[in-house]
């Protein structure tokens, strides 16, 4: 494993200290000069993370970083930044020369993925390497309230239903009047046969409507349907 080689190299060299810089370039998404001074970057490996404040030149300086594999995170109030994997190692400049030099490598990394699952390389070099960090997205903290919009109001099914029934109530009499007498008679015949308005005047029915008994489910159909329905479960469902 690459990482164990690093740690072995670290042991061998005793103390090594690399120096690199995370830099935020100006992009269309972000003008880094507008970021708050509380923006900071951390390098986490083992123990307390190394912390670096945002500098005037929109960068985070890390000095004296010992060899190892680090998770670099930029913490910012207004933007999400991609996490990076930064490996610091001591390597021979020329094979067999014995001369060790710090090498810094940076890749993308992904939360919830294996550490060896590296993304795109974000830079490789010796001391003083500048690694660019890019913002992924601005952070939106607030929920929008759905305000009053006439169009969405009209789109709602309740309003559509109401409008439809309005059209029926007001439009039907005119339709009936405009019908020729034969079809009208036929229509009335049909209405009489239909179970909905069997015998009585619907208006009269409406006037004599007993709300209390209806709510108590007194009609025969209501009782039968209740008996069949799995009542307790349907209550739980609600």
């Amino acid at each position: 494993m690459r990482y164990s080689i690093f740690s072995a190299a670290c042991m061998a060299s005793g103390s090594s200290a690399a120096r690199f810089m995370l830099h935020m370039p100006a992009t269309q998404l972000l003008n880094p000069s507008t970021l708050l001074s509380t923006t900071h970057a951390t390098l986490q490996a083992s123990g307390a993370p190394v912390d670096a404040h945002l500098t005037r030149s929109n960068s985070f300086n890390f000095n004296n970083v010992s060899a190892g594999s680090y998770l670099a995170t930029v913490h910012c109030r207004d933007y999400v930044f991609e996490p990076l994997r930064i490996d610091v190692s001591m390597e021979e400049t020329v094979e067999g020369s014995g001369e060790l030099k710090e090498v810094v490598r940076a890749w993308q990394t992904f939360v919830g993925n294996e550490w060896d699952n590296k993304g795109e390389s974000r830079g490789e070099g010796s001391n003083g390497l500048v690694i660019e960090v890019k913002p992924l997205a601005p952070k939106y903290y607030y929920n929008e309230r759905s305000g009053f919009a006439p169009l969405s109001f009209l789109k709602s099914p309740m309003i559509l239903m109401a409008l439809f029934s309005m059209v029926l109530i007001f439009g039907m009499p005119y339709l009936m009047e405009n019908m020729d007498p034969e079809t009208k008679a036929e229509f009335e015949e049909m209405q009489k046969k239909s179970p909905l308005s069997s015998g009585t005047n619907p208006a009269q029915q409406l006037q004599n409507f007993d709300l209390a008994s209806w709510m108590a489910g007194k009609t025969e159909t209501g009782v039968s349907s209740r008996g069949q329905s799995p009542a307790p479960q349907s209550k739980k469902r609600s």
Partner: protein
Amino acid sequence: MRFDAALALAACLAPAAAVFEDDAHHIDFHYALLGLPKHDATFFQKPFAGSKASLLYTISQNQTIGVVNPKDGALVWRQASSHDGAGPGLLRSGEGQDTVVSAAGDRISAWSASDGRLVWETRVAGATVEDLEILEQEDGITDTEAKDAIVLLGNGKPGVKRLDGKTGRTKWTFEDASGDTPFQVSTSPTTIYYISLHTPMIGASKLRVTSLSPITGKKLDQYTLSSDSDIQSREHILFAGANTAAPLIAWTDVANKVLKINIIGTKGVSTFHAPSGEPVERIILHAPDRVNSLAHFLVEYQTAVGHSADVYHVDLKKSTISKAYSLPALKGKGTFTTSTSDANVYFTRVTAEEVTVVSSVSHGVLGRWPVRGTPALAGAYPVHGTSEVVVKADSATAVRSAILFSNGQWSLIRNGEIAWTRPEFLSRVVSAVWAELPEEEEALAHKLEAEGDRNLVSAYIHRVERHIRDLEHFPAWLQNIPNRVLGNVIGKSEESAIEEIHHDTFGFHKLVIVVTERGRLAALDVGSKGKVVWHIDLNQFSPKTTFHSPSMRAFAGYVEVKDASLEGSIYINSTTGGLISSQDIEVRSNVAAEGQSLISFDLVDGDLEGFLDTKSSPEAIWTFEPPKGERIISYTARPVKDPVASIGKVLGDRRVLYKYLNPNLVLVTTVVESSRTASVYLLDSASGQLLHTSSHRDVDVSRPISSTISENWFSYSFTIDSKSATSSRGYQLVVAEMYESPLPDDRGPLGASPNASTLQPSEGNGDAAKPHVLLQTWHIPEEISHMTVTQTRQGITSRELLVTLPASNSIVGIPRQAIDPRRPIGRDPTAQEQSEGLTKYTPMILFDPKWHLNHKYELIGVKNVITSESGIESTSLVFAYGLDIFGTRVAPSFAFDILGKGFNKVQMLLTVVALFVSVLFVAPLVQRKQINSLWTT
């Protein structure tokens, strides 16, 4: 991009209740605090040369650098020290510079003065910075570019360093191997003076002054000042002048009777006598810190009853000090501040009643303003401050002074008016509790109960009497109606007064009692934007105690304060802040009913032990001893008040998984340093029985492991250690749910029995029921330092896991839905699972910005978060404390029982009016039609 996809997934996964933009800054409040400002490191300064307005810079006693706009007291920027560094916190600024230089512990940093960004940072390994100065002039020439900093190091590697003002690189180092205690550095236009305390084996301490060349750092000269055994330690030195044209060093004798002053660079010591009369308690020397100002200074004498001052002039040519004039003694406490304008020096005297400005040249008063007091400063006196004076034609036209008052308020007095006050005494709260008010409802319940005991007639009379008594509130209530209705409709309901805490409909106005490190107690109303209801200093009740980290417990109507250094406890009334003697408190019977006893538990010698409360002998009834090598780092118990609405979880197929609900659950976290293992143990605190264990390898045991437990689930988080070759890195969150049985519709071995005992399980049906634990782990992008759970009145509302993220200075509420351990792994949820709201398991949880409770606020140094129920079921109150104070309310299942701001009351009224008008129009039409239909049929 994978990360984007994950982000989008996380966003759509849990449509949690986020903060509405119009609610933000209204339902929540944030005190961005600094701590008490330090006298020598508080100053007005222009953020860059040529700036029109100056800002107020300070470093506080807890080493937080803060910059405040002097106009309104708003914070411009601040940098909190993340390391509790030793040594003093120092902040200096050169004239006309666009940086400020700070030092704390072993770090010296330069910050951009206008926005607080880092310019450079230097660390001196193995030493602490004792003093810091800016080299204003070099060889009499003012450096127009970045001015260099002179740093005095102590503690291990004593010496003086000169740091480049642009880069922070060391220009030279002077090492002091004499073994003296470094005290201070002082610069003059030509020389750098290094003052140290020389303590020989025999005899009194001496002051040793070493002059160094600013260019090379080489020692030019050295002399010692005999102090005649006045100086034993550095506390006895009053002043060592910084950056004045004639730097001074001053000290007194033990009785504060004689003042001795030496002009640094000369060997003569001038002696002055303190005013006779009242014994002087404290002498403070105020001198200007600008190079080109007149060499005048003021000595303030504080006595028990008043204060007075003398002004002295230094003759640079003759190197003599002479007294110029005296300022009259005033009764009461006050302070002096120094300000310069060109070469002139002005002294501002600030008392609680008056601000006066005098010139250092003569004693004539240039300006006088009476101070209009505010309730926040009632009874307090100025402790120290800094001033800016505008003088035109020999009269002071304006003066503003940033004054720290004795009650911990930092305020700005502008021409006698209090422009703003910052409640800096609230910083570094160590303990907070929700105050339990003596409830009126309870009183009503008692009255009704009393009726039950009487006969019918007297009970009826009692009831009528009570109703008549209640009628006296009726006129006031009636009078209030128009105001309330109007306020409601316009939507600008004025925040109700503090007296209204008792008459609070929604229960948002809850008092939180906080106590700070230094023993200051305050009550905040969370419902009305954290208004400070009262605050007191505990030291007035026990003057001898120095509070370190007091702890509190809340009872109905009062709180009990305890401290390690305090004998017994102090009882404070929750609503008034008054002291209650322990006799006045009725001894409350324990919560346990007759025949029952409570079991308490505590850490004893690294083991967790349970005790019977009633027994006087402290003999443990159970002991939890962690396996060999493991160390208990924390334990969390299920909250005492943790209502659960449903005993089961209904599955998609209408079967029920029964929750394991045990009120006596304790979660113990242990670590093994050597093998980097962390384990959690779930105990039953009544029997001490172990219910569940889980263990994790490759844990960074030096980082915080936070945990919480509620209802039938617990969670904890930890950091993965990189030392071993782990397959993944970062931080993990573990959530576990406990059920009575793995099978739905099954209640486990105890299902049939009506009673069960954890103490004597064998008498019941078989062994004690152990929960069936479902456990799931997620990767999280940040470290969690503390976690807790929201609380509501009935527990119907779904809970939210509140986690504190120290790296991004925020508190995040993770909805329970997102961290359900039953989320299907490696497959899409079935239709039934979907109906339960379960989504496919993803190995990571990214914190959606909408989950942040603090939205744009930045909460620095949050130590703890406490939650409480409000008056309505949907809402839980949240209060976070530490360096900052933050309070809000959350509705994890949305505010279903209260109308939010989105409800347009005007629109509703207009609709009603429109309907009414249309009815008026339609009514005659209908009537006509009905009459017509009667005639026609």
